């Protein structure tokens, strides 16, 4: 569904993404893990068009999308939930969701959009309760739900999530993750997921990539990665040296 080939991204002279190739298959959750500053956010932003790659190809459903503007990419069915949520804080919860449907909204045919809003409220009942509240007054977990709901309002086929669980209480993060699984299983959504907590990301993912200082250093099925010694040492917090001396 999404194929990256030899993508390079620079911030001025900083080479943030180096020669990255990856493949997201339809109906899969693909986890991208890596330390802080590895280039995960940069890579996601390049896919959604916020940042331009300097070379390489980004193919979405067979067509080249690198170099296109974010509004064109959203129309093609890629929705990006950015790091730090980026909800419209001074707008109401309802307006945040409504704006999610911006690219397909038409005043005369607002029926489908209204229906989809109801679906979001059914999925995240807490948002229904807070409909009229300013989005900035929501708790962190609620803001994340709103950010995801807003992205879903665009009717994506590929959902890109940048650290949806970061900064949330573990139970809330778990809830968010179970929503992500349900989106894949019940709605057939394809998900590209970046998460600091590598374990919980790999647990729900089908396959994964490990990125280090801008380079993909490892890839495989989620099980493989969970069992990989290097991954365990670097990202899963297991100190194998002390566990098994010699």
């Amino acid at each position, binding site marked *: 569904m999404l194929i990256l080939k030899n993508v390079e991204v620079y911030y001025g002279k900083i080479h943030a993404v180096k020669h990255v190739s990856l493949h997201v298959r339809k109906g899969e959750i693909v986890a991208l893990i890596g330390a802080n500053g590895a280039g995960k956010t940069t890579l996601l932003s390049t896919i959604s068009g916020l940042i331009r790659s300097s070379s390489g190809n980004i193919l979405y459903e067979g067509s080249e999308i690198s170099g296109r503007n974010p509004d064109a990419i*959203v129309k093609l069915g890629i929705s990006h939930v950015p790091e730090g949520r980026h909800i419209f804080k001074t707008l109401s919860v309802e307006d945040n969701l409504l704006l999610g449907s911006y690219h397909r909204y038409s*005043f005369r045919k607002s029926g489908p959009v209204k229906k989809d809003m109801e679906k979001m409220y059914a999925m995240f009942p807490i948002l229904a309760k807070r409909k009229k509240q300013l989005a900035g007054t929501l708790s962190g977990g609620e803001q994340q739900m709103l950010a995801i709901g807003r992205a879903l309002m665009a009717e994506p086929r590929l959902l890109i999530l940048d650290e949806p669980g970061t900064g949330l209480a573990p139970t809330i993060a778990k809830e968010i993750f179970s929503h992500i699984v349900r989106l894949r299983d019940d709605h057939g959504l394809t998900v590209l997921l970046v998460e600091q907590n590598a374990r919980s990301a790999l647990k729900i993912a089908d396959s994964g990539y490990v990125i280090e200082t801008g380079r993909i250093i490892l890839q495989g099925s989620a099980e493989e990665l969970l069992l990989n010694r290097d991954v365990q040492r670097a990202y899963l917090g297991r100190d194998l040296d002390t566990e098994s001396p010699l």
Partner: protein
Amino acid sequence: MFTVFLQFLFSGLTVGAVYALVGMGFNIIYNSTSIINMAQGEFVVIGGLFMWFFSETVKLPFFLSAILTVLAAGFVGLLMERFTIKPLKSNDLLLMIMVTIAVSILMRGLLMFKFGKDPYSYAPFTEGEPLNIAGAVIQQQTLWVIGITACCIVLLFLFFNRTMMGKAMRACAVDTTAAKLVGINVSRVVMISFILSAMVGAIGGIAITPISLMEYDKGPMLAVKGFCAAIMGGLGRGRGAVIGGFAIGILESMTAGYIHSGMKDAVALVIMLAILFFRPAGLFGSVAMSKLRKF
């Protein structure tokens, strides 16, 4: 005594209405770009002078002249954005503001070239006896100015709160990244905000000219007063600019009436300095909000 007060009050409301419109113009652009458009006053001048041109020189009917004037002003706003703001694409707000100053100087030059330095005026919208309220004389045009301003306020409120485009413009102001990600064409929103604020300014110019005359170099003073109105209410807040505009208009007119007319223009500046010193967030703006802002 009361009659005189009432007289001052009405003349204050009249100029205040225009300050409010200029202030809202500032807010429209500030809200979608964080730029302070120093050419805001020139759009008011364009309103008055173009209206004179269409109705007195070309001799078009009143309504058509007004519509053409507003459209022309919108077109000037569009040109300004496409040729100065968009190509620069700079994050340096100070630079952008300087560019708007340059544009205002250019516009003033062109206006002087076409219209000369004379003040212009045309007939009030409706003829007839002035109204008499408790002894105070109120020209019908005064009511037009206040009425039109009120309509603009209501329409802008509905636009920003009830329409998708209006909400999208607010979304751009709150979070440009997120606005892009939901598919808003941010560059187009910036363009629309310049068109809209140019039109609002021109409407003010059309309405006020029969009362206070219009000449090519009235822009900067109007911009200062309108800017003052906008920061008095807290930059970016629609209702704030309206209240600020009327407040400055009334204070000015009272100062001119009770103290000295030479002091009139100092009022806005004193208020502006006081606010910048003591309450930079504006009287209605929240301090927390202003800290999140770039400017």
